[in-house]
């Protein structure tokens, strides 16, 4: 025996998709809200440059606004929050390798910079 809520849910999904079971049906309101926040966050990251923040404050704000924007786009516009975790992990975990690569190259380029400064200032 199915509960009343279940019946209601089934009825709703049938009428919403016109007898066609299809994925990713969400109210347009959600997209408009995310759109609005993307505009606000972009304006904020532009203001970081316009106001002229420097140093760790600047880099920190740039990273924060960037990650918030990226998160909103992937989660809502690309529907990742509504996909199963098996897909989300398969796609979102491998880019961690890029971060590891970045860390390796950061160490490497520090070393290159030091070598260059020593070699160039000492007359090669």
């Amino acid at each position, binding site marked *: 025996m199915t509960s009343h809520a279940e019946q209601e849910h089934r009825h709703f999904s049938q009428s919403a998709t016109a007898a066609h*079971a*299809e*994925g990713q049906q969400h109210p347009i309101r959600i*997209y408009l809200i995310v759109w609005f926040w993307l505009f606000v966050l972009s304006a904020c990251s532009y203001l970081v440059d316009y106001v002229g923040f420097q140093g760790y404050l600047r880099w920190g704000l740039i990273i924060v606004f*960037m990650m918030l924007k990226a998160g909103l786009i992937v989660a809502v*516009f*690309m529907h990742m929050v509504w996909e199963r975790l098996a897909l989300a992990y398969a796609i979102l975990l491998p880019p961690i390798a*890029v971060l590891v690569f970045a860390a390796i190259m950061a160490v490497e380029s520090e070393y290159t910079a030091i070598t260059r400064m020593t070699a160039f200032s000492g007359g090669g």
Partner: protein
Amino acid sequence: MAETTLDGTAPEQSRPAGLRGVAADWASDQRAFKSASWGKAMMWIFLLSDTFIFGCFLLAYMTARMSTTVPWPNASEVFALHIGGVEVPLILIAIMTFVLISSSGSMAIAVNFAYRRNRRATVALLLVTALLGATFVGMQAFEWTKLISEGVRPWGNPWGAAQFGSSFFMITGFHGTHVTFGVIFLLIVARKVWRGDYDDGARGFFTSRRGDYEHVEIMGLYWHFVDLVWVFIFAFFYLW
């Protein structure tokens, strides 16, 4: 019916959620992606590979910028425009960012209307998206022209480290190419929606498979990815 099952939008059965769900989906010796069709899963995997490509471009840029002993040109000044006698920093890039975000929003809503079978609204929004994308590429062409006329080359520029030019042309050029291809495919998908190809199941030119409105969503995944890449380019190349 076999195709309907493959398209992955079969009604949700009671599948386990959370980590147990990940283990169950991957261990089932069948399709790992229960909620995504093969088309959507392949687009996601393509986008993952593209992530590595752009990731490596940005990494190369980071390595060049961190290891050079010559000062890096100030992007805020390089990309400033004279507007009404005032020097406005980064203004063209800011406008380009807003144009691309607007196109992402119209794309998201186009996908929504596609699933509602509202063909007229879907086509209109897809064309708006393509128009905004073309505007973006146009502004990028203007930006390239301006920089080239000021003497920026892949091997040097008037303001500092030579790698500035090579990083700039490589990264924005590759991104602009992505946007251009996106615009072309947006127009193709818009035409197919306009003709009702996804209603009567006409076979597509690419795979000869019958399409459905999920194609619009898959097209949207690509387009949002192009916007996503710009978020990172804007942060690391223009703002840093």
